[in-house]
């Protein structure tokens, strides 16, 4: 009986990929462990390896095919002495014949038990409203957040030769999440620097280089690892200008993905926004869409202050409109109204913005007109924008993918109490993740993370619906 080879999932969130290359052809015999094909996603390329031995009966999906769904039959392997049956005839119940080399488990197309990651509920199709900071009539292209970030760095590196990028796997590997893709080729190893796995050390070197007059962009593979380096971010970078009476600056950018990712467990899933936003002397930026990611990263690199720039792995691959401007730089410290409304305000940032927009669309169907504010910068916080919107809607909910205690939500609520009390028609509510380390089990992960229904429920509560 022929064994079906199915398109594997390279990561828990992968839904489709490109069959980049077949390394075998029909009629070839293969042994367990032979590399059959190369499969590509926007994040990575990997080899697809045979588990069973046999003969390649039929290649169902040709190489170069884009958008092959996970679980699609891509080839058939025949055992010894078997004829090649038509793929449709096969109703294989066996496990997939091939497994990717990486740790990712191959997905089974109709497998009923496939574990859905909780981060699936962080997905969003809703798009922010046009940004008035972008001149009207500007040509827009569609780009991913990942491309926008890369372009921001490349443009700033072309503009200022003091700018360089350092971090783990930023150069030859092209970035652990492909954010620095192509930079090594354009700028060379002097300016795109692979570091050893040594966060405390290279954060210090980056900070020292900034003190010495350069413009480092220090990438953390994720901000979870920056915990090993937080001393330099806070004690060395944030406080120097003040301690020196304004004499010694530290224009460094620390950037990388922050927040929950799919099924990676507690140590790799945390939003550090509130940590950094509590420290005077830092600028903290956490953009959502591609336009803000690009415009604010460019501004961060130009800033004379140390900047913590929090990205989100789950947002890297999302596509948005990106203005085609020669020099798209946005103001730091300004929130953006991504949806106008009059009944209630949802304040959010980073991946929460997509959820807030989804919730707003749903609520519009129920006659509740929601305004959504994307904070974009967490420090300095644009309290004017929050209070102006509150004055208009008199009701406010904060949606944040992160722990609830001592969160950005807590801060926004404090601001509303201290400065917006008279405008409040209902208590301000926060919708965050549960107050637990992020669990691995798919069902628990789902339960722990923020989702649209929770935001919708909170909005109904403050609007007494």
């Amino acid at each position: 009986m022929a064994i079906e080879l199915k398109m594997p999932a390279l990561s828990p969130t992968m839904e489709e990929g490109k069959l980049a290359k077949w390394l075998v052809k029909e009629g070839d015999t293969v042994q367990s462990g032979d590399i059959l094909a190369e499969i590509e996603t926007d994040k990575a390329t990997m080899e697809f390896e045979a588990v069973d031995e046999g003969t390649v009966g039929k290649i169902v999906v040709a190489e170069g095919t884009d958008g092959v769904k996970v679980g699609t039959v891509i080839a058939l392997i025949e055992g010894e002495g078997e004829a090649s049956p038509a793929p449709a005839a096969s109703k294989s119940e066996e496990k997939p014949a091939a497994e990717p080399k990486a740790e990712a488990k191959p997905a089974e197309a109709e497998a009923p038990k496939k574990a859905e990651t909780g981060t699936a509920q962080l997905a969003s199709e809703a798009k922010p409203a046009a940004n008035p900071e972008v001149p009207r009539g500007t040509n827009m292209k569609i780009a991913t957040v990942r491309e926008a970030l890369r372009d921001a760095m490349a443009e700033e590196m072309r503009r200022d030769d003091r700018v360089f990028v350092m971090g783990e796997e930023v150069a030859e590997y092209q970035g652990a999440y492909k954010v620095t893709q192509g930079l090594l080729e354009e700028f060379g190893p002097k300016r795109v620097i692979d570091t050893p796995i040594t966060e405390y050390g290279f954060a210090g070197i980056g900070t020292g280089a900034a003190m010495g007059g350069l413009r480092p962009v220090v990438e953390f593979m994720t901000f979870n690892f920056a915990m090993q380096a937080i001393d330099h971010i806070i004690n060395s970078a944030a406080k120097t200008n003040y301690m020196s009476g304004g004499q010694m600056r530290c224009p460094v950018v620390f950037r990388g993905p922050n927040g929950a990712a799919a099924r990676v467990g507690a140590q790799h899933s945390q939003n550090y926004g509130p940590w950094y936003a509590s420290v005077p002397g830092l600028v903290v930026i956490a953009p959502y869409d591609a336009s803000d990611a690009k415009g604010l990263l460019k501004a961060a690199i130009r800033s004379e202050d140390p900047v913590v720039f929090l990205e989100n792995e789950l947002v890297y691959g999302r596509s948005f409109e990106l203005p085609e401007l020669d020099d798209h730089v946005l103001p730091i410290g300004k929130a953006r109204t991504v949806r106008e409304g009059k009944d209630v305000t949802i304040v959010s940032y980073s991946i929460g913005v997509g959820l807030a927009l989804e919730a707003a669309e749903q609520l519009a169907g129920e006659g509740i007109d929601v305004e959504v504010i994307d904070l974009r910068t967490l420090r300095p916080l644009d309290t004017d924008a929050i209070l102006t919107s509150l004055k208009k809607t008199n009701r406010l909910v904060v949606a944040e993918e992160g722990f609830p205690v001592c969160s950005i939500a807590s801060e926004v609520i404090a601001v509303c109490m201290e400065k917006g009390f008279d405008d409040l028609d209902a208590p301000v509510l926060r919708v965050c993740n549960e107050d637990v380390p992020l669990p691995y089990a798919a069902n628990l992960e789902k339960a722990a993370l923020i989702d649209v229904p929770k935001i919708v429920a909170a909005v109904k509560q403050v609007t007494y619906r």
Partner: protein
Amino acid sequence: MAKPAKSGTVAAKSSAAKSGSTATRRRAAPAKKAEPAFAEAGDDNFALRSLQEAHGNEKRYKASDEELLEFYEQMLLIRRFEERAGQLYGLGLIGGFCHLYIGQEAVAVGLQSALDSTKDSVITGYRDHGHMLAYGIDPKVIMAELTGRHSGISRGKGGSMHMFSVDHRFYGGHGIVGAQVSLGAGLAFAHKYREDGGVALAYFGDGAANQGQVYESFNMASLWKLPIIFVIENNGYAMGTAVKRGSAETEFYRRGTAFRIPGMDVNGMDVLEVRQAAEIALDYVRQGNGPVLMELNTYRYRGHSMSDPAKYRTREEVQEVREKSDPIEGAKKELLARGISEDKLKDIDKRIRAAVSESADFAENSPEPDASELYTDVLVERY
């Protein structure tokens, strides 16, 4: 009672016992004698000890009378300045932490005299007053920073541990033990990136030498051949913990070996030995060979900071070092032996006392920072 580590260390390292061991090592490689022949990394382990051997061959810098007088004057300025800072602390004019450099003067003076002040950079930890004075920064603005006044070098907002002079390429003044080592590697990175020919000097103590980031920095500095000299000021005590109670390897100059960084073991109580060692290290680093690790064996006469129980060592130990190895007394003796008149030295002493008094008066009489300074310099830009 076990004998405190340091009296053993200073005495042994700076005198006979040490030169004995150097001689042994020299015999092992008799061919490489006179020249600091900087071997390629491939030449097994010779590169790692070549600088030490070069130093062993030529221990002391041949200073002119003028140079030695200048070193003497600088060391004396640090000593008198720190004594006065201690007094002002006692009067309540200086608060918080105040780490005095008394006893260690030869280290900063010997090393910094060898630097090229137009391009090299310096960074250190919290015991920073001495390094600033050795760099020629005005004692008045240092003392005024200690008293927290507006005319202090950090406008009163940094204090004893946080002083900087970007003009002098002095990058602080850092309070987190060991942080300056990574930051210093960053300064060296900037020198190399800009190809400006500068070398960074990162000072840290025997205590900081046990911090993990020090070794992260050693690794990258050596991997990338950064122009940096790591200077361990081994004063025998990490706060109150004697070296041998806190360090498995007490010969700190060996600690770069795992990263292929050559080490130098230097008597930090003799300014001319320090200067000579600095010349060798700088020459090596300027040639693009990457970092050097220098251990400067020295001694702190005063407490770690101002409130020090002084229970971790004996008064006799301190007294012995003072009497036998004091860097200023040593320089004075040598100057007198060279025929410099006692009067000339007295003039210097008088001049220093006047300068220190002036700095103290300035520091006491300068106004505190304006209340509005509370909110300035948090960020450079407005957003």
